[in-house]
Protein backbone atom coordinates (compact mmCIF):
# COMPACT_ATOMS: atom_id res chain seq x y z
CA UNK A 1 0.00 0.00 0.00
CA UNK A 2 2.75 2.43 0.95
CA UNK A 3 4.66 1.46 -2.15
CA UNK A 4 1.61 2.41 -4.20
CA UNK A 5 1.39 5.70 -2.40
CA UNK A 6 5.03 6.41 -3.21
CA UNK A 7 4.40 5.55 -6.85
CA UNK A 8 1.37 7.83 -6.90
CA UNK A 9 3.33 10.74 -5.40
CA UNK A 10 6.13 10.18 -7.93
CA UNK A 11 3.72 10.15 -10.89
CA UNK A 12 1.98 13.26 -9.58
CA UNK A 13 5.33 15.05 -9.16
CA UNK A 14 6.38 14.03 -12.64
CA UNK A 15 3.10 15.29 -14.12
CA UNK A 16 3.44 18.58 -12.28
CA UNK A 17 7.02 18.95 -13.47
CA UNK A 18 6.22 18.38 -17.14
CA UNK A 19 6.01 22.09 -18.08
CA UNK A 20 9.29 22.74 -16.25
CA UNK A 21 11.11 20.03 -18.14
CA UNK A 22 9.41 20.38 -21.50
CA UNK A 23 9.67 23.98 -22.55
CA UNK A 24 9.03 23.34 -26.21
CA UNK A 25 5.43 24.43 -26.78
CA UNK A 26 4.73 21.71 -29.34
CA UNK A 27 5.60 18.92 -26.93
CA UNK A 28 3.85 20.56 -24.01
CA UNK A 29 0.70 20.83 -26.09
CA UNK A 30 1.15 17.18 -26.93
CA UNK A 31 1.08 16.44 -23.21
CA UNK A 32 -2.20 18.36 -22.89
CA UNK A 33 -3.61 16.39 -25.81
CA UNK A 34 -2.62 13.14 -24.15
CA UNK A 35 -4.50 14.15 -21.02
CA UNK A 36 -7.59 15.03 -23.03
CA UNK A 37 -7.59 11.81 -25.03
CA UNK A 38 -6.64 9.91 -21.90
CA UNK A 39 -9.77 11.17 -20.19
CA UNK A 40 -11.84 10.35 -23.26
CA UNK A 41 -10.44 6.81 -23.35
CA UNK A 42 -10.88 6.29 -19.60
CA UNK A 43 -14.49 7.46 -19.82
CA UNK A 44 -15.16 5.10 -22.72
CA UNK A 45 -13.50 2.34 -20.75
CA UNK A 46 -16.14 2.61 -18.04
CA UNK A 47 -18.41 1.11 -20.66
CA UNK A 48 -16.02 -1.14 -22.55
CA UNK A 49 -13.82 -2.50 -19.80
CA UNK A 50 -15.97 -2.39 -16.70
CA UNK A 51 -19.37 -2.69 -18.32
CA UNK A 52 -18.52 -5.02 -21.21
CA UNK A 53 -20.36 -2.78 -23.69
CA UNK A 54 -18.30 -1.94 -26.78
CA UNK A 55 -19.30 1.44 -28.16
CA UNK A 56 -18.27 2.86 -31.53
CA UNK A 57 -19.89 6.24 -31.01
CA UNK A 58 -17.99 7.78 -28.13
CA UNK A 59 -16.53 10.65 -30.16
CA UNK A 60 -20.05 12.01 -30.55
CA UNK A 61 -19.76 13.40 -27.02
CA UNK A 62 -16.83 15.53 -28.15
CA UNK A 63 -19.06 16.86 -30.89
CA UNK A 64 -22.19 17.39 -28.83
CA UNK A 65 -20.27 19.30 -26.15
CA UNK A 66 -18.06 21.29 -28.50
CA UNK A 67 -20.76 22.40 -30.94
CA UNK A 68 -23.12 23.29 -28.09
CA UNK A 69 -20.35 25.28 -26.42
CA UNK A 70 -19.53 27.15 -29.63
CA UNK A 71 -23.17 27.98 -30.33
CA UNK A 72 -23.84 29.15 -26.78
CA UNK A 73 -20.74 31.30 -26.58
CA UNK A 74 -21.52 32.84 -29.96
CA UNK A 75 -25.05 33.54 -28.73
CA UNK A 76 -23.54 35.67 -25.99
CA UNK A 77 -23.67 33.40 -22.95
CA UNK A 78 -20.84 33.64 -20.43
CA UNK A 79 -18.18 30.94 -20.23
CA UNK A 80 -19.48 29.25 -17.08
CA UNK A 81 -23.04 28.90 -18.37
CA UNK A 82 -21.67 27.74 -21.71
CA UNK A 83 -19.54 25.04 -20.11
CA UNK A 84 -22.26 23.77 -17.77
CA UNK A 85 -25.02 23.72 -20.37
CA UNK A 86 -22.80 22.13 -23.02
CA UNK A 87 -21.77 19.27 -20.75
CA UNK A 88 -25.31 18.87 -19.44
CA UNK A 89 -26.82 18.78 -22.92
CA UNK A 90 -24.26 16.28 -24.17
CA UNK A 91 -24.78 14.07 -21.12
CA UNK A 92 -28.53 14.25 -21.65
CA UNK A 93 -28.07 13.08 -25.23
CA UNK A 94 -25.93 10.30 -23.78
CA UNK A 95 -28.80 9.33 -21.51
CA UNK A 96 -31.07 9.05 -24.54
CA UNK A 97 -28.44 7.16 -26.57
CA UNK A 98 -28.10 4.77 -23.64
CA UNK A 99 -31.82 4.01 -23.64
CA UNK A 100 -31.64 3.20 -27.36
CA UNK A 101 -28.37 1.26 -27.34
CA UNK A 102 -29.27 -0.85 -24.32
CA UNK A 103 -32.16 -2.34 -26.23
CA UNK A 104 -29.51 -4.63 -27.68
CA UNK A 105 -26.32 -6.24 -26.46
CA UNK A 106 -23.05 -7.31 -28.08
CA UNK A 107 -22.90 -6.56 -31.81
CA UNK A 108 -26.33 -4.93 -31.74
CA UNK A 109 -25.16 -2.49 -29.08
CA UNK A 110 -22.03 -1.74 -31.08
CA UNK A 111 -24.04 -1.04 -34.23
CA UNK A 112 -26.58 1.20 -32.53
CA UNK A 113 -23.79 3.29 -31.01
CA UNK A 114 -22.12 3.42 -34.42
CA UNK A 115 -25.35 4.60 -36.05
CA UNK A 116 -25.95 7.22 -33.36
CA UNK A 117 -22.39 8.46 -33.75
CA UNK A 118 -22.92 8.73 -37.50
CA UNK A 119 -26.15 10.68 -36.96
CA UNK A 120 -24.30 13.23 -34.84
CA UNK A 121 -21.49 13.35 -37.37
CA UNK A 122 -23.96 13.66 -40.26
CA UNK A 123 -25.78 16.56 -38.65
CA UNK A 124 -22.49 18.34 -37.98
CA UNK A 125 -21.42 17.70 -41.55
CA UNK A 126 -24.65 18.66 -43.27
CA UNK A 127 -26.26 21.37 -41.13
CA UNK A 128 -24.09 24.05 -42.69
CA UNK A 129 -25.63 27.20 -41.28
CA UNK A 130 -25.52 25.83 -37.75
CA UNK A 131 -22.20 24.00 -37.69
CA UNK A 132 -20.22 25.41 -40.58
CA UNK A 133 -20.33 21.98 -42.23
CA UNK A 134 -17.06 20.50 -43.34
CA UNK A 135 -15.17 23.72 -42.60
CA UNK A 136 -15.94 23.56 -38.92
CA UNK A 137 -16.55 26.42 -36.56
CA UNK A 138 -14.42 28.45 -34.17
CA UNK A 139 -14.68 28.75 -30.40
CA UNK A 140 -13.95 32.37 -29.56
CA UNK A 141 -11.58 32.04 -26.59
CA UNK A 142 -10.60 29.90 -23.64
CA UNK A 143 -12.33 30.76 -20.37
CA UNK A 144 -10.54 32.32 -17.42
CA UNK A 145 -11.44 30.09 -14.50
CA UNK A 146 -11.31 32.11 -11.25
CA UNK A 147 -9.66 34.87 -13.21
CA UNK A 148 -6.68 32.73 -14.20
CA UNK A 149 -5.57 33.08 -17.78
CA UNK A 150 -5.11 29.66 -19.40
CA UNK A 151 -4.27 30.77 -22.90
CA UNK A 152 -0.57 29.88 -22.68
CA UNK A 153 0.57 26.30 -23.18
CA UNK A 154 1.86 25.68 -19.61
CA UNK A 155 -1.22 27.21 -18.00
CA UNK A 156 -3.51 25.20 -20.19
CA UNK A 157 -1.55 22.07 -19.33
CA UNK A 158 -2.09 22.65 -15.61
CA UNK A 159 -5.76 23.40 -16.14
CA UNK A 160 -6.18 20.15 -18.09
CA UNK A 161 -4.17 18.24 -15.52
CA UNK A 162 -6.45 19.40 -12.71
CA UNK A 163 -9.61 18.43 -14.58
CA UNK A 164 -8.03 15.12 -15.56
CA UNK A 165 -6.95 14.35 -12.00
CA UNK A 166 -10.37 15.16 -10.57
CA UNK A 167 -12.09 13.01 -13.19
CA UNK A 168 -9.69 10.13 -12.71
CA UNK A 169 -10.17 10.30 -8.95
CA UNK A 170 -13.95 10.01 -9.29
CA UNK A 171 -13.66 7.16 -11.78
CA UNK A 172 -11.13 5.38 -9.59
CA UNK A 173 -13.51 5.62 -6.63
CA UNK A 174 -16.34 4.35 -8.80
CA UNK A 175 -14.43 1.34 -10.02
CA UNK A 176 -13.83 0.05 -6.51
CA UNK A 177 -17.20 1.13 -5.13
CA UNK A 178 -20.25 -1.06 -4.59
CA UNK A 179 -21.69 0.35 -7.81
CA UNK A 180 -18.48 -0.51 -9.63
CA UNK A 181 -18.68 -4.07 -8.33
CA UNK A 182 -22.27 -4.31 -9.49
CA UNK A 183 -21.31 -2.98 -12.93
CA UNK A 184 -18.59 -5.60 -13.31
CA UNK A 185 -20.94 -8.27 -12.04
CA UNK A 186 -23.51 -7.26 -14.62
CA UNK A 187 -20.81 -7.56 -17.29
CA UNK A 188 -19.87 -11.12 -16.27
CA UNK A 189 -23.18 -12.68 -15.23
CA UNK A 190 -26.17 -10.47 -16.03
CA UNK A 191 -28.68 -13.23 -15.41
CA UNK A 192 -27.26 -14.11 -12.02
CA UNK A 193 -27.09 -10.45 -11.05
CA UNK A 194 -30.81 -10.10 -11.68
CA UNK A 195 -31.44 -13.14 -9.55
CA UNK A 196 -29.41 -11.51 -6.79
CA UNK A 197 -31.71 -8.49 -6.84
CA UNK A 198 -29.66 -6.16 -9.06
CA UNK A 199 -31.37 -4.03 -11.70
CA UNK A 200 -28.95 -4.82 -14.52
CA UNK A 201 -30.52 -2.46 -17.03
CA UNK A 202 -30.36 0.48 -14.66
CA UNK A 203 -26.76 -0.31 -13.69
CA UNK A 204 -25.69 -0.38 -17.32
CA UNK A 205 -27.67 2.71 -18.22
CA UNK A 206 -26.15 4.68 -15.35
CA UNK A 207 -22.71 3.54 -16.48
CA UNK A 208 -23.56 4.76 -19.98
CA UNK A 209 -24.63 8.15 -18.62
CA UNK A 210 -21.50 8.48 -16.47
CA UNK A 211 -19.34 7.50 -19.41
CA UNK A 212 -21.11 10.11 -21.53
CA UNK A 213 -20.63 12.70 -18.80
CA UNK A 214 -16.86 12.24 -18.51
CA UNK A 215 -16.62 11.96 -22.28
CA UNK A 216 -18.40 15.32 -22.47
CA UNK A 217 -15.95 16.83 -20.00
CA UNK A 218 -13.16 15.61 -22.27
CA UNK A 219 -15.10 17.21 -25.13
CA UNK A 220 -15.12 20.54 -23.35
CA UNK A 221 -11.35 20.30 -22.86
CA UNK A 222 -11.08 19.42 -26.54
CA UNK A 223 -12.80 22.59 -27.69
CA UNK A 224 -10.84 24.70 -25.17
CA UNK A 225 -7.63 23.23 -26.51
CA UNK A 226 -8.35 23.49 -30.24
CA UNK A 227 -10.67 26.52 -30.12
CA UNK A 228 -12.25 24.84 -33.11
CA UNK A 229 -14.55 21.93 -33.91
CA UNK A 230 -15.26 20.22 -37.22
CA UNK A 231 -16.96 16.95 -38.21
CA UNK A 232 -13.50 15.46 -38.62
CA UNK A 233 -13.07 15.37 -34.83
CA UNK A 234 -16.17 13.24 -34.32
CA UNK A 235 -15.90 10.81 -37.21
CA UNK A 236 -16.17 7.07 -36.88
CA UNK A 237 -12.40 7.02 -37.07
CA UNK A 238 -12.09 9.15 -33.93
CA UNK A 239 -14.48 6.82 -32.09
CA UNK A 240 -12.46 3.86 -33.28
CA UNK A 241 -9.21 5.50 -32.20
CA UNK A 242 -10.60 6.07 -28.73
CA UNK A 243 -11.71 2.47 -28.53
CA UNK A 244 -8.27 1.38 -29.67
CA UNK A 245 -6.66 3.42 -26.89
CA UNK A 246 -8.77 1.57 -24.33
CA UNK A 247 -8.15 -1.88 -25.78
CA UNK A 248 -4.48 -1.31 -26.58
CA UNK A 249 -3.64 -0.26 -23.05
CA UNK A 250 -5.86 -2.87 -21.45
CA UNK A 251 -9.58 -2.44 -21.02
CA UNK A 252 -9.71 -4.35 -17.75
CA UNK A 253 -7.58 -1.75 -15.96
CA UNK A 254 -7.94 1.87 -14.94
CA UNK A 255 -4.53 2.92 -16.21
CA UNK A 256 -4.59 0.91 -19.45
CA UNK A 257 -6.57 3.45 -21.50
CA UNK A 258 -4.18 6.20 -20.39
CA UNK A 259 -1.22 4.17 -21.60
CA UNK A 260 -3.15 3.58 -24.82
CA UNK A 261 -3.81 7.30 -25.17
CA UNK A 262 -0.13 8.10 -24.64
CA UNK A 263 1.00 5.61 -27.27
CA UNK A 264 -1.62 6.46 -29.88
CA UNK A 265 -1.25 10.23 -29.48
CA UNK A 266 2.54 10.08 -29.61
CA UNK A 267 2.68 7.70 -32.54
CA UNK A 268 0.06 9.70 -34.39
CA UNK A 269 1.84 13.02 -33.93
CA UNK A 270 5.37 11.79 -34.33
CA UNK A 271 4.65 9.51 -37.26
CA UNK A 272 2.54 12.03 -39.10
CA UNK A 273 5.42 14.51 -39.09
CA UNK A 274 7.48 12.02 -41.09
CA UNK A 275 5.01 10.08 -43.20
CA UNK A 276 1.35 10.49 -43.91
CA UNK A 277 0.48 6.83 -43.63
CA UNK A 278 -0.97 7.26 -40.14
CA UNK A 279 -4.25 5.54 -41.00
CA UNK A 280 -2.51 2.42 -42.28
CA UNK A 281 -0.48 2.29 -39.12
CA UNK A 282 -3.57 2.82 -36.99
CA UNK A 283 -5.34 -0.01 -38.81
CA UNK A 284 -2.32 -2.27 -38.47
CA UNK A 285 -2.03 -1.57 -34.73
CA UNK A 286 -5.73 -2.33 -34.42
CA UNK A 287 -5.39 -5.69 -36.16
CA UNK A 288 -2.21 -6.67 -34.32
CA UNK A 289 -3.50 -5.72 -30.88
CA UNK A 290 -6.74 -7.62 -31.33
CA UNK A 291 -5.04 -10.68 -32.76
CA UNK A 292 -2.03 -10.92 -30.48
CA UNK A 293 -2.69 -8.75 -27.44
CA UNK A 294 -6.43 -9.03 -26.79
CA UNK A 295 -6.01 -8.05 -23.13
CA UNK A 296 -3.81 -5.05 -23.84
CA UNK A 297 -0.42 -3.82 -22.75
CA UNK A 298 -0.92 -3.08 -19.06
CA UNK A 299 -2.31 -6.52 -18.10
CA UNK A 300 0.30 -8.11 -20.37
CA UNK A 301 3.16 -6.30 -18.62
CA UNK A 302 1.64 -7.04 -15.23
CA UNK A 303 1.64 -10.72 -16.08
CA UNK A 304 5.29 -10.54 -17.15
CA UNK A 305 6.17 -8.74 -13.91
CA UNK A 306 4.44 -11.37 -11.78
CA UNK A 307 6.20 -14.14 -13.67
CA UNK A 308 9.56 -12.39 -13.35
CA UNK A 309 9.08 -11.85 -9.59
CA UNK A 310 8.10 -15.47 -9.13
CA UNK A 311 11.19 -16.60 -10.96
CA UNK A 312 13.39 -14.24 -8.95
CA UNK A 313 11.89 -15.63 -5.77
CA UNK A 314 12.45 -19.27 -6.67
CA UNK A 315 16.03 -18.44 -7.67
CA UNK A 316 16.64 -16.83 -4.33
CA UNK A 317 15.12 -19.85 -2.59
CA UNK A 318 17.59 -22.06 -4.44
Amino acid sequence: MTRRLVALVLVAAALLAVPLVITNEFYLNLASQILIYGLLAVSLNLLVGYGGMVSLGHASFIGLTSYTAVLLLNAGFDQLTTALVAVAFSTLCGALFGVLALRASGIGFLMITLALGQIVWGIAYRANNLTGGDNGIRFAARPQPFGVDISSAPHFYYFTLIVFAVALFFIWRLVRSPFGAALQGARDQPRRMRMLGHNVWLIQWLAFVLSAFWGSVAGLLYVYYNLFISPHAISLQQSAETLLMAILGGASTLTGPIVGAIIITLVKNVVSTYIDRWNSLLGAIFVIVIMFMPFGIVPGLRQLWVRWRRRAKTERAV
Partner: protein
Amino acid sequence: MTPALEISHLKKRFGGLPATRDVSLTVMPGERRLIIGPNGAGKTTLFNLVTGDLTPDEGSVKLFGREMLKLPTQQRVHLGLARTYQILTLFPKETLLHNVVLALLGLDRSRWNPWAYLAGQRRLYDAARAALVQVGLGEIAERVVGETSYGERRRLEMAMALAQKPKVLLLDEPLAGLSQEERKQVRDVLNAVPRDVTIVMIEHDMDSALAFAERITLLHYGEVIVEGTRAEVVADPRTKEVYLGE
Protein backbone atom coordinates in the same frame (compact mmCIF):
# COMPACT_ATOMS: atom_id res chain seq x y z
CA MET B 1 -52.93 -19.09 6.09
CA THR B 2 -51.53 -17.46 2.94
CA PRO B 3 -49.36 -19.88 0.99
CA ALA B 4 -45.70 -18.91 0.64
CA LEU B 5 -45.76 -19.77 -3.04
CA GLU B 6 -48.89 -20.30 -5.05
CA ILE B 7 -48.59 -21.30 -8.68
CA SER B 8 -51.81 -21.66 -10.63
CA HIS B 9 -52.49 -22.88 -14.16
CA LEU B 10 -49.01 -21.98 -15.37
CA LYS B 11 -48.41 -22.68 -19.07
CA LYS B 12 -45.36 -22.21 -21.27
CA ARG B 13 -44.66 -23.36 -24.81
CA PHE B 14 -41.37 -23.16 -26.72
CA GLY B 15 -42.22 -22.87 -30.38
CA GLY B 16 -44.87 -25.53 -30.61
CA LEU B 17 -43.59 -27.66 -27.74
CA PRO B 18 -45.27 -27.34 -24.37
CA ALA B 19 -42.67 -27.25 -21.60
CA THR B 20 -45.12 -26.51 -18.82
CA ARG B 21 -48.78 -27.44 -19.21
CA ASP B 22 -51.17 -26.20 -16.62
CA VAL B 23 -49.06 -26.58 -13.50
CA SER B 24 -50.64 -25.63 -10.18
CA LEU B 25 -48.73 -25.89 -6.95
CA THR B 26 -49.23 -24.55 -3.44
CA VAL B 27 -46.39 -24.43 -0.91
CA MET B 28 -47.18 -23.37 2.67
CA PRO B 29 -44.79 -21.22 4.75
CA GLY B 30 -42.01 -23.22 6.31
CA GLU B 31 -42.66 -26.23 4.13
CA ARG B 32 -39.91 -28.36 2.58
CA ARG B 33 -41.14 -29.32 -0.85
CA LEU B 34 -39.39 -31.65 -3.21
CA ILE B 35 -40.10 -31.55 -6.93
CA ILE B 36 -39.03 -34.66 -8.74
CA GLY B 37 -39.37 -35.93 -12.24
CA PRO B 38 -37.32 -37.46 -15.01
CA ASN B 39 -35.17 -35.36 -17.34
CA GLY B 40 -37.23 -33.02 -19.46
CA ALA B 41 -40.11 -33.00 -16.99
CA GLY B 42 -40.01 -29.19 -16.94
CA LYS B 43 -38.63 -28.75 -13.44
CA THR B 44 -36.04 -26.07 -14.23
CA THR B 45 -38.47 -24.37 -16.62
CA LEU B 46 -40.90 -24.12 -13.72
CA PHE B 47 -38.22 -22.39 -11.62
CA ASN B 48 -37.41 -20.03 -14.49
CA LEU B 49 -41.08 -19.09 -14.73
CA VAL B 50 -41.24 -18.44 -11.00
CA THR B 51 -38.12 -16.26 -10.98
CA GLY B 52 -39.01 -14.35 -14.13
CA ASP B 53 -36.15 -15.62 -16.31
CA LEU B 54 -38.98 -16.81 -18.56
CA THR B 55 -42.41 -15.29 -19.09
CA PRO B 56 -45.30 -17.78 -19.02
CA ASP B 57 -47.99 -17.81 -21.67
CA GLU B 58 -50.71 -18.07 -19.05
CA GLY B 59 -51.19 -18.52 -15.34
CA SER B 60 -50.20 -16.84 -12.12
CA VAL B 61 -47.38 -16.97 -9.57
CA LYS B 62 -48.02 -15.51 -6.13
CA LEU B 63 -45.52 -14.99 -3.35
CA PHE B 64 -47.31 -14.66 -0.01
CA GLY B 65 -50.46 -13.70 -1.88
CA ARG B 66 -48.81 -11.12 -4.09
CA GLU B 67 -48.94 -11.59 -7.86
CA MET B 68 -45.41 -11.55 -9.29
CA LEU B 69 -45.83 -12.14 -13.01
CA LYS B 70 -45.67 -8.48 -13.92
CA LEU B 71 -42.54 -7.91 -11.83
CA PRO B 72 -39.01 -8.14 -13.22
CA THR B 73 -36.75 -10.76 -11.66
CA GLN B 74 -34.88 -8.39 -9.37
CA GLN B 75 -38.08 -7.16 -7.76
CA ARG B 76 -39.16 -10.71 -7.03
CA VAL B 77 -35.84 -11.15 -5.27
CA HIS B 78 -36.51 -8.07 -3.19
CA LEU B 79 -39.83 -9.64 -2.14
CA GLY B 80 -37.95 -12.57 -0.63
CA LEU B 81 -37.27 -15.02 -3.45
CA ALA B 82 -33.84 -16.61 -3.94
CA ARG B 83 -32.59 -19.47 -6.04
CA THR B 84 -29.56 -21.57 -6.87
CA TYR B 85 -28.77 -22.80 -10.35
CA GLN B 86 -28.35 -26.35 -11.52
CA ILE B 87 -25.70 -25.15 -13.96
CA LEU B 88 -23.34 -23.16 -11.75
CA THR B 89 -23.72 -19.44 -12.39
CA LEU B 90 -20.93 -17.79 -10.42
CA PHE B 91 -18.28 -15.12 -10.90
CA PRO B 92 -15.31 -17.38 -11.58
CA LYS B 93 -12.53 -14.77 -11.42
CA GLU B 94 -13.61 -13.39 -8.05
CA THR B 95 -13.14 -14.72 -4.54
CA LEU B 96 -15.85 -16.70 -2.79
CA LEU B 97 -16.22 -13.74 -0.46
CA HIS B 98 -16.79 -11.32 -3.34
CA ASN B 99 -19.43 -13.64 -4.80
CA VAL B 100 -21.41 -13.58 -1.58
CA VAL B 101 -20.88 -9.82 -1.22
CA LEU B 102 -22.47 -9.34 -4.64
CA ALA B 103 -25.42 -11.37 -3.39
CA LEU B 104 -25.73 -9.18 -0.31
CA LEU B 105 -25.32 -6.01 -2.36
CA GLY B 106 -28.31 -7.02 -4.46
CA LEU B 107 -30.60 -6.30 -1.53
CA ASP B 108 -28.59 -3.47 -0.03
CA ARG B 109 -29.22 0.18 -0.79
CA SER B 110 -25.50 0.82 -0.91
CA ARG B 111 -25.35 -0.99 -4.27
CA TRP B 112 -25.93 2.37 -5.98
CA ASN B 113 -23.06 4.04 -4.15
CA PRO B 114 -20.36 5.02 -6.67
CA TRP B 115 -18.09 6.58 -4.08
CA ALA B 116 -17.60 4.32 -1.04
CA TYR B 117 -14.81 1.77 -0.93
CA LEU B 118 -16.46 -1.63 -1.27
CA ALA B 119 -13.71 -3.56 0.46
CA GLY B 120 -14.13 -1.26 3.46
CA GLN B 121 -17.77 -2.21 4.06
CA ARG B 122 -17.34 -4.28 7.23
CA ARG B 123 -21.04 -4.95 7.60
CA LEU B 124 -21.28 -6.61 4.17
CA TYR B 125 -18.09 -8.58 4.53
CA ASP B 126 -18.93 -9.86 7.99
CA ALA B 127 -22.32 -11.05 6.79
CA ALA B 128 -20.75 -12.64 3.72
CA ARG B 129 -18.15 -14.44 5.82
CA ALA B 130 -20.88 -15.69 8.14
CA ALA B 131 -22.80 -17.10 5.19
CA LEU B 132 -19.66 -18.90 3.99
CA VAL B 133 -19.02 -20.30 7.47
CA GLN B 134 -22.60 -21.53 7.50
CA VAL B 135 -21.94 -23.75 4.48
CA GLY B 136 -18.49 -24.77 5.69
CA LEU B 137 -16.45 -22.57 3.34
CA GLY B 138 -15.20 -20.12 5.95
CA GLU B 139 -11.64 -21.39 5.65
CA ILE B 140 -11.34 -20.67 1.94
CA ALA B 141 -13.34 -17.45 1.75
CA GLU B 142 -10.47 -15.59 0.07
CA ARG B 143 -9.92 -18.19 -2.61
CA VAL B 144 -10.85 -17.44 -6.21
CA VAL B 145 -13.82 -19.47 -7.46
CA GLY B 146 -11.80 -20.77 -10.39
CA GLU B 147 -9.50 -22.57 -7.96
CA THR B 148 -12.18 -24.39 -5.98
CA SER B 149 -13.70 -27.82 -6.40
CA TYR B 150 -17.11 -28.52 -7.86
CA GLY B 151 -18.53 -29.42 -4.48
CA GLU B 152 -17.27 -26.17 -3.00
CA ARG B 153 -18.88 -24.21 -5.80
CA ARG B 154 -22.20 -25.96 -5.18
CA ARG B 155 -22.01 -24.86 -1.58
CA LEU B 156 -21.08 -21.33 -2.67
CA GLU B 157 -24.30 -21.24 -4.71
CA MET B 158 -26.09 -22.14 -1.52
CA ALA B 159 -24.24 -19.54 0.55
CA MET B 160 -25.15 -16.78 -1.93
CA ALA B 161 -28.82 -17.68 -1.71
CA LEU B 162 -28.84 -18.13 2.07
CA ALA B 163 -26.97 -14.86 2.64
CA GLN B 164 -29.94 -13.03 1.17
CA LYS B 165 -32.13 -14.37 4.02
CA PRO B 166 -34.90 -15.29 1.61
CA LYS B 167 -38.45 -16.19 2.56
CA VAL B 168 -38.73 -18.67 -0.26
CA LEU B 169 -35.64 -20.53 -1.42
CA LEU B 170 -35.59 -22.41 -4.72
CA LEU B 171 -32.84 -25.02 -4.98
CA ASP B 172 -32.17 -26.49 -8.39
CA GLU B 173 -30.50 -29.88 -7.87
CA PRO B 174 -28.19 -28.80 -5.04
CA LEU B 175 -26.88 -32.33 -4.65
CA ALA B 176 -26.05 -33.00 -8.29
CA GLY B 177 -22.54 -34.22 -8.93
CA LEU B 178 -21.52 -34.31 -5.27
CA SER B 179 -19.75 -37.12 -3.41
CA GLN B 180 -21.42 -38.90 -0.49
CA GLU B 181 -19.39 -36.82 1.93
CA GLU B 182 -20.35 -33.54 0.25
CA ARG B 183 -24.01 -34.52 0.09
CA LYS B 184 -24.03 -35.01 3.79
CA GLN B 185 -22.52 -31.55 4.28
CA VAL B 186 -25.17 -29.95 2.07
CA ARG B 187 -27.96 -31.86 3.82
CA ASP B 188 -26.67 -30.65 7.17
CA VAL B 189 -26.69 -27.09 5.89
CA LEU B 190 -30.25 -27.49 4.66
CA ASN B 191 -31.41 -29.07 7.93
CA ALA B 192 -30.02 -26.09 9.79
CA VAL B 193 -32.04 -23.57 7.76
CA PRO B 194 -34.65 -22.08 10.10
CA ARG B 195 -38.31 -22.82 9.57
CA ASP B 196 -39.25 -19.31 8.55
CA VAL B 197 -37.61 -20.09 5.22
CA THR B 198 -39.74 -22.06 2.80
CA ILE B 199 -37.70 -24.37 0.62
CA VAL B 200 -38.62 -25.77 -2.78
CA MET B 201 -36.02 -28.18 -4.09
CA ILE B 202 -35.67 -29.89 -7.44
CA GLU B 203 -33.94 -33.22 -7.46
CA HIS B 204 -33.46 -35.58 -10.32
CA ASP B 205 -32.21 -38.38 -8.12
CA MET B 206 -35.06 -39.14 -5.76
CA ASP B 207 -33.25 -41.23 -3.17
CA SER B 208 -30.74 -38.61 -2.14
CA ALA B 209 -33.36 -35.99 -1.36
CA LEU B 210 -36.18 -38.09 -0.04
CA ALA B 211 -35.33 -37.73 3.62
CA PHE B 212 -35.45 -33.97 3.33
CA ALA B 213 -38.92 -33.63 1.84
CA GLU B 214 -42.19 -33.37 3.65
CA ARG B 215 -44.30 -33.09 0.56
CA ILE B 216 -43.37 -34.21 -2.90
CA THR B 217 -44.61 -33.14 -6.30
CA LEU B 218 -43.93 -35.39 -9.27
CA LEU B 219 -43.68 -33.63 -12.62
CA HIS B 220 -43.75 -35.44 -15.93
CA TYR B 221 -43.87 -33.82 -19.38
CA GLY B 222 -44.69 -30.47 -17.81
CA GLU B 223 -47.61 -31.75 -15.77
CA VAL B 224 -48.17 -32.53 -12.12
CA ILE B 225 -48.74 -36.29 -11.98
CA VAL B 226 -48.79 -36.96 -8.27
CA GLU B 227 -48.63 -34.76 -5.21
CA GLY B 228 -48.75 -35.67 -1.55
CA THR B 229 -46.73 -36.64 1.48
CA ARG B 230 -43.53 -38.58 1.05
CA ALA B 231 -45.25 -41.88 1.84
CA GLU B 232 -48.19 -41.18 -0.47
CA VAL B 233 -46.04 -40.30 -3.45
CA VAL B 234 -43.66 -43.18 -3.00
CA ALA B 235 -46.56 -45.60 -2.69
CA ASP B 236 -48.47 -44.23 -5.66
CA PRO B 237 -48.43 -46.59 -8.65
CA ARG B 238 -48.11 -43.67 -11.09
CA THR B 239 -44.83 -42.68 -9.44
CA LYS B 240 -43.48 -46.15 -10.03
CA GLU B 241 -44.72 -45.98 -13.58
CA VAL B 242 -43.12 -42.68 -14.68
CA TYR B 243 -40.20 -42.54 -12.35
CA LEU B 244 -39.05 -45.49 -10.39
CA GLY B 245 -39.85 -47.84 -13.21
CA GLU B 246 -37.31 -46.26 -15.48
